[in-house]
């Protein structure tokens, strides 16, 4: 447990120092403030404004940031892992668990730190058409999507020892998955479909079963990605 906490602290230190974090957070905050001002003056619908911000700003920018940060989790320090960390009294499970908690937790915290105040301001100043439960569920759905992307990124970082390859592999899978899901007739599973339904979700109009289905599927996929990361990393030679 002590090793887990030490690596967690070390990795959070890496993330807060990262230049990606330094760019990522301002890029989310600046458009959010602008949208609050516009929504207040133009009397925009809160649900549409929230959904537009998520679709046009947060998901693309955060998606890219999470893809890079998660894909660099293991591959970004391939030399240091063996020399500085795993040759000491640390198990691979402890190392992997700390990395996953740190990278996914960091993503979730940044997302919620931006979205909770932003959602409050939008609900407060834009034309109110949302339900509290709808907003909470909508925000959690997007959080789950980002978490899944992060988990998949970590899986790729255990597969490749080069960060660039890991990022490219992840982006390729994300792009190809859209085509595959369309081919299989499972478009409801795609990120696009979930984002498209967000205004309704914020208003509390999305059927419960649809939401449960999205939560179940993406939770299962996240769990599968995490399990794969553990397995791949345990089998890998360092």
């Amino acid at each position: 447990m002590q090793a887990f906490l030490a690596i967690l602290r070390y990795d959070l230190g890496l993330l807060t120092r990262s230049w990606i974090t330094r760019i990522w957070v301002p890029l989310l905050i600046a458009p959010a403030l602008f949208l609050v001002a516009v929504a207040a003056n133009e009397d925009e619908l809160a649900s549409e404004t929230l959904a537009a911000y998520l679709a046009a700003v947060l998901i693309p920018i955060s998606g890219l940031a999470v893809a890079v940060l998660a894909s660099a989790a293991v591959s970004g320090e391939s030399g240091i892992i063996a020399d500085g960390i795993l040759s000491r009294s640390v198990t691979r499970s402890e190392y992997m668990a700390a990395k996953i908690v740190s990278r996914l937790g960091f993503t979730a915290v940044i997302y919620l730190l931006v979205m909770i105040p932003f959602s409050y301001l939008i609900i407060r100043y834009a034309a109110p058409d949302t339900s509290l439960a709808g907003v909470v569920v909508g925000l959690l759905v997007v959080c789950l999507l980002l978490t899944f992307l992060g988990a998949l990124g970590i899986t790729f970082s255990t597969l490749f020892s080069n960060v660039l390859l890991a990022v490219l592999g992840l982006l390729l899978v994300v792009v190809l998955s859209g085509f595959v899901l369309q081919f299989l007739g499972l478009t409801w599973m795609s990120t696009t479909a979930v984002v498209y339904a967000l205004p309704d979700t914020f208003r509390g109009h999305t059927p419960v079963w649809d939401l449960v289905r999205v939560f179940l599927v993406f939770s299962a996929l996240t769990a599968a990605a995490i399990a794969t990361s553990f397995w791949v990393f345990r089998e890998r030679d360092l």
Partner: protein
Amino acid sequence: MHVVQTTDLTKIYDNRYIALNALDLRVEKGTVFGLVGPNGAGKSTTFRILLGLQKPTAGQVQVLGEPMTAERADIRRRIGYLPTNPSFPRYMTPIGFLEFVGSVIGLSQDRAKVQLARLLQAVDLTNAASQKIEGFSTGMMTRLGIAAALMNDPELLILDEPTSGLDPAGRKQTIELIRELTGRDRTIIIATHILSDVERVCSDVGIISQGRMIYAGPMADMRRLARQGTISVEIEGNTTAFEQQIHTLDEIGSVRYERLGAEFRLTFLGTQALTEYITRVLQLIDRTGVELLHINTGADEIEEAFLRRLEEDRTRGFLRAAAWAATQEISGAKEESDAGIPGHPAV
């Protein structure tokens, strides 16, 4: 007690490259063991398997009396490891890094601080304690690596090429540091291809070539082996007469020689004492009337022994393979007979 014991340790990468080939390594407690071999011989792979960083393809590994795997953090807690040209988090300072190592191995904050201050002083990095690691030279990285390896006061210390990339002063300093670490029941394994380093600090030596241990034993035996029967003489005068009479030395053991200008290198394959060979060579010099300019019985002795072992191993490759196959056949037949397989009744 063997602190490290490997049996038939084999590592094959991607079914393409054989890094370790049935390696048998035994390291006794309290010894300073030098693992010597050319680049690519399998030294670093051996260490990575000993630490559980890599999985063996076949064979057994026991470290501190227990089988080693990736999840055996409890065994690694008792080991210190210095990798070749180590890479550590570049943004950290030595204090930050050693604190991190201390927290990973479960030292309390206070204990870690005391330990890191003591070690930074021992490795002469106190003045660089506030610098970021990214500005460190190779020598400073090695010294920091040694400090990190000693944070847990290990029973077993594994040093992979500790003098690699260091200038003569840095090398001397590192060797002195390693010397200071010997004793107190601590076992040290040093991999290197610099033979003079081994000669200076090791009590035991193993020669690894193409992933196999071709010699292992006390350093004193290695020296004896090197000295055994090789005498170089540089002479002046009627060297032809001397050369023609070398065969007369055969009576005290088969002799081979090679001539390099005025220097004759005589190798005796017998079992007599070295002094006996020297006496006979001096008698021959006297008899043939040549003038002795220089006589040498042990210069570069370790290097000589090392190269001789490598050469013998290469020339005996097929004989060795045949002997191994025969051993396998015998043990296979024995197992069959022990099991009482029909048609192969137990004796």
